[in-house]
């Protein structure tokens, strides 16, 4: 709307358009919280309903999920550094740290795909039981979000190379970082709620 521009403060907050986009994205994350909460509730209700398929405790392994957790938590940290570099006006630092973030994300995705394939080989598939349906859909929705986030951030890196740091590009990077941290928070719930509890019970 109004194009009046502030001259101080972080680039992404200087225009009204930037501030509105960021608020809009926070509200969108609120809706995402509800989306994942519904999936978690579904998972909780269907917990233990494995029918003839293997029980999760037979399949879940601490080593694999711990590796995934470390990859994703570290990526959140490097994403934070990327935004810190952006705030310092260092486009190169932003790009470097964001690329590291995305590589960690890719590592996470690879591990998740490996894990899913492994489960399928053991007879735990999407159609095998209500429990495994809810498991694959919950973890898969998170994985799909990570995939989209990687694609999205890659597009932004191209824009950064073309345009450098502006009000608009820094707003986009800030928003993608919010998204990335959000996925990390969801993963913490998946790690504890699905894997840790699933291994014990």
């Amino acid at each position, binding site marked *: 709307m109004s194009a009046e521009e502030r001259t101080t403060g972080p680039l992404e907050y200087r225009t009204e358009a930037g501030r509105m986009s960021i608020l*809009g994205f926070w509200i*969108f994350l609120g809706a995402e919280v509800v989306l994942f909460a519904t999936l978690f509730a579904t998972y909780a209700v269907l917990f233990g309903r494995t029918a003839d398929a293997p029980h999760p405790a037979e399949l879940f392994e601490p080593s694999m999920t711990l590796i995934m957790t470390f990859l994703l938590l570290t990526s959140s940290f490097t994403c934070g550094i990327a935004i810190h570099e952006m705030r310092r006006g260092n486009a190169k630092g932003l790009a470097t740290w964001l690329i590291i973030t995305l590589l960690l994300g890719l590592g996470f995705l690879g591990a998740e795909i490996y894990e899913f394939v492994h489960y399928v080989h053991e007879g735990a598939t999407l159609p095998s039981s209500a429990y495994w349906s809810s498991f694959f859909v919950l973890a898969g929705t998170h994985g799909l979000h990570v995939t989209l986030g990687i694609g999205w951030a890659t597009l932004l890196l191209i824009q950064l190379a073309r345009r450098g740091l502006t009000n608009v590009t820094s707003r986009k990077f800030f928003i993608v970082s919010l998204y990335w941290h959000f996925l990390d928070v969801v993963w913490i719930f998946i790690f504890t709620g699905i894997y840790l509890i699933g291994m014990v019970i």
Partner: protein
Amino acid sequence: MALDEFFVTGEPLIYAGMVSIALVTSAIIFLLTYFKKWGWLWREWLTTVDHKKIGIMYILSALVMLFRGGADALMMRTQLAFPGLEFLDSQHYNEIFTTHGTVMIIFMAMPFLIGLMNIIVPLQIGARDFAFPFVNAVSFWAFFLGAMLFNISFVIGGSPDAGWTSYTPLAGAAMSPGPGQNFYLMGLQLSGIGTLATGINLMVTILKMRAPGMKLFHMPIFTWSTLVTCFIIVFAFPILTVALALMTIDRIFGAQFFTLTGEGLPMMWANLFWMWGHPEVYIVILPAFGIFSEVIATFAKKRLFGYNAMVWSMIIIALLSFLVWVHHFFTMGAGAFVNSVFSVSTMLIAVPTGVKIFNWLATLYKSRIEFTVPMLWSLAFIPSFILGGVTGVMLGMAAADYQFHNSYFLIAHFHYVLIAGTVFACFAGLVYWYPKMFGHKMNERIGKWAFWLFLIGFHICFFPQYFLGLDGMPRRLFITNIAEWLPLNVISTVGAFGMGAGFAVFVFNIYYSYRYSEREKTGDAWGHGRTLEWSTTTPVPFYNFATVPYVDEIDPYVRMKEEGKTTFDEKKLKPIHMPSYSGQPIIMMSFFALASFALVFEWIPLAIAGLLGGVACMAFRSFDYDDGYYVQVDEIKRTERKARGL
């Protein structure tokens, strides 16, 4: 797939539907070509991001959907009054009550209200467009294409037939094979995503784009109702998204969420559906309350009584709306304790609603009421809605609900709240703001005919249904040749046709007024406008406000009129930033609609292609740095002087 499986065959009514679709489509194509209007259609409407035009498109689509849902209703009533005629067979009847409910809630009530919000909310808060005009266009096309996808089901592939609630296991792949139920899932999914985006968009618009000085508690009550509704949308619609996705995965990819095999839980669908569905009820009633509040204050010529109480009662209703969903299935057998908790929370909602009723009455008290058409709809709403509300409390009593459950008593109850609440409000709001949208009023005399026909028809149609319910007539029944039920059913059908006549007169009035109504010369069409939308000129310039007034009170336009202030202060003019029109929203959503259509028939490669196309459009949009243009001061001066006759 063979062609005769693709198209629905063997049903004369559906052949008639096909012929009329073909005729209307070719008539539209012919007219657009003959008058060389394709370019105009594309430039002015299909690519628009102007909230006023998008709002008009929403309302037009909603009126078409009201016609479709109404035609379904009349067919059902005909069957029920003359069960011996065998007008509909059981399958066709199932399809019709399913599409009637779905169309009316998802594709009529919500888009009608969202259309009014689109046009009015930015004008009421002194904004020049939505926070995200591009997203607004995306939302509209998501809704529109979702609605079209759902509506073609009756000629292609077959309609869904498991009720608008689509309870599993009936709606699952085992008991409802074929594309019908998929149309329901994909049509709702597509339009639901549009609704969610609109909710976020309007929330940011209201929170960030109010006129200088306007605090939240200075906002017009319709804007308040929109803000509260958006809060419900943002927190309820993701639940529907998940529920629909889970059933889609069940049906297409063989998952076991709601199945009877694989230890699935069919009743979980009912929970997820109503965890969205009950808040949804308030999504369509709160904006209606907002409209009535505006209309009543305007034609009682008084400030709305108890403004703060009105706002707080809406907020409380919104919070409670998330805590009552189990009352839709008390008979599921959750146990006395659970039922009692939800029974109490349900009855609690009557308290803030009662507060609102008394506030409207107090606004009317000792006022000089002007009986215009929008005011008639609003006055008729109060007693009619109370009948629906009180029977709602009766249904909310868990023990008694075992008697009322799934009977016509329930049907009568929710039609009393949804028609007397939402539909009356849509008509009231459309007539009230019509001059703002189209530059002329709707004819009052014909409008009163439409009102009385619809109102009397409505009571004749639905009041007997309370008694049919108490006499034990279950809903969704297509054979009613039980002697005790027949007289009331016939009366009810007569009323339904009365409502149909009222709607026909209403639509005729749109045409009549377009031809013969006097064109508006001032912005304040009714002469008693209290809020900022009436301070703009008519027709509203595309940038809405040349200069945005400073607002520090409720009903700011009352004082502006006293002090002779307008929204055109030549000394304060500055270039206005406006967004550019774009064809991307309709193209992007067409790809997603193609993917949805492919998923309906489970053509996975085509679905993937459509999805990739849609995602490619989003990537394209990400690289699009078009940030609009500036309207120069000279142009604003010219436009305003012409509109104001200076």
